[in-house]
């Protein structure tokens, strides 16, 4: 009896998540009257703005990942090594971006860094890109920090650090040659999550008026019928592709370790 209900709940869950997806995909294929076709997809791919915004977001997500790694790996390492009692505080801080809406952050940015401020970042395209990267880094912080911290848990940070120090290594060498390689899998999973977040982000890019993928999706959705669901399916495929890559990297590196 319990088994029956368990299966029932499972099926209900599947339907709940899958039906809209199936419906959306089905609709996106119906651009041509009376038959299924990929016309909507072709239209999306033919649109230059798709490629422009997509590559823009891709570049920014790469920048976000680099900034995030440079910020999070040394911080998480230092906290584990020297300030273990401060870990709950740091964890709380990294959770704040989940609680504070992006719109609050971006308005704060605009107030602080507008053209009449001490650091007029919004005055130039590059400055705004930098600002947007910082914003994305903040949004990705909870995921990045958690991944890296979990990765650090699997190694004996203190002993490895002291061993390296006694062999003459300084902080940069220790971080680059010992800590980072040992948490690489964790860093990569944080990186893929960051990529997924940046590709879908709308609020910050729109309010800072940058040509990102999120606002493009919104623009298309407001003006067309068949292309938006096609775009949604594409975005969905990209996100799932990232998740798959994440799994693959984890799997692959374990495999490497076992056979090496």
């Amino acid at each position: 009896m319990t088994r029956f209900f368990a299966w029932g709940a499972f099926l209900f869950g599947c339907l709940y998540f899958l039906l809209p997806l199936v419906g959306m995909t089905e609709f996106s294929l119906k651009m041509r009257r009376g038959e299924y076709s990929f016309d909507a997809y072709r239209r999306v791919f033919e649109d230059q703005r798709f490629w422009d915004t997509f590559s823009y977001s891709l570049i920014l997500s790469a920048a976000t990942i680099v900034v995030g790694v440079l910020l999070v790996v040394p911080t998480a390492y230092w906290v584990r090594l020297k300030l273990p009692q401060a870990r709950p505080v740091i964890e709380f801080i990294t959770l704040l971006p989940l609680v504070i809406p992006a719109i609050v952050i971006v308005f704060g940015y605009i107030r602080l860094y507008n053209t009449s401020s001490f650091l007029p970042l919004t005055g130039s395209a590059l400055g705004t890109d930098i600002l947007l990267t910082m914003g994305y880094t903040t949004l990705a912080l909870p995921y990045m920090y958690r991944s890296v911290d979990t990765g650090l848990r699997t190694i004996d940070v203190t002993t490895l650090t002291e061993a390296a120090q006694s062999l003459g290594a300084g902080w940069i060498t220790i971080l680059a040659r010992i800590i980072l390689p040992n948490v690489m899998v964790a860093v990569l999973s944080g990186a893929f999550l960051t990529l997924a977040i940046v590709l879908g982000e709308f609020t910050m890019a729109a309010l800072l008026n940058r040509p990102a993928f999120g606002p493009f999706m919104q623009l298309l959705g407001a003006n067309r019928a068949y292309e938006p669901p096609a775009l949604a399916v594409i975005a969905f495929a990209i996100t799932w592709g990232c998740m798959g890559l994440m799994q693959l990297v984890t799997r692959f590196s374990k495999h490497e370790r076992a056979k090496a």
Partner: protein
Amino acid sequence: MSFLTMTHLEKIFGQNRVVKDFSLSVEKGEFISLLGPSGCGKTTVLRMVAGFESPSAGGITIDGKDVTGLKANSRNIGMMFQAYALFPNMTVADNVAFGLKVKGAPKAERDARVAEMLALIGLADLGGRFPFQLSGGQQQRVALARALAPRPSVLLLDEPLSALDAKVRVSLRNQIRQIQQELGITTIFVTHDQEEAMSISDRIVVMNGGVADQVGAPFEIYNRPRTRFVANFVGTLNTFEVEVADPASGRVMLAGQGLTLPDAPLAARAGETLSVALRPEALRLGRLPDAEALLTAKVTDVHFMGSVIRLKADLAGAAVSLDTFNRPDTPPPVVGSEVEVSLSGRDFILLQA
């Protein structure tokens, strides 16, 4: 001037004085063991030498140079830890080469040194393996090679054998000692295993509550312990109360028999009682011509340990342990039997306080 000196070292954690007025001079090429119970500050002393803790007071010099304020990574010290501390992302060869790489040694020199080190520890063909593919004993040997590769001036070992099983412990400690003598490297070895310390050290520092109770060669520490703590901590001890007969000549009485203690004149008056101790092997089974006194003991327990037989017996009102060698033609005494025990005053250890 000694090669490595620690003068009046002190370490305070919060309210806790963990190391108190610790001084030690180590000669070049000497193998010193820090021996003591858990929490007595052995690791803390070692970490101060390594540069991982800075002393609250006192100083450290290596080869005539004051290193007290120097950072750990500029002291040129080799260290081996209790936990396997190999870098998991590097092969055995890369682990061993790490110190040389940090120093900027050219690749040819590194490769030659790695090969030399791996040969020294007897793992020449495992250079390509990763640490997780090695046994615990092999990992610790690689850790030793890694510590030695950059030619450190001092080698520090913090209970490097305690995670290994008994057989490997013994063979590895002998190997460590052999390599140490071969390279002539000044070494400090931390352990709480007295047998380990005695078998491989030139000198032992017995620590108790943050101070060095006694420093000396294993033979000296074992046979002439200066404090009750050292006597009890190193080896097994039988203690007796004896009555002073003649303090000037060191004459005392035990169960009606006269004995002459080695530490005459005694700092006690006639008629007073003194605490004295005797190692299990100084109580000898049977009637021996050179012994000063002969007593009878009642055997309460027999442990046959192979080459040594350890008996527990009641002797002069005290429960004692005595050791005797196995002899193939003589079966050990049985429990409950009476045996004759020979003993001499010169073997007694006078315990202060």
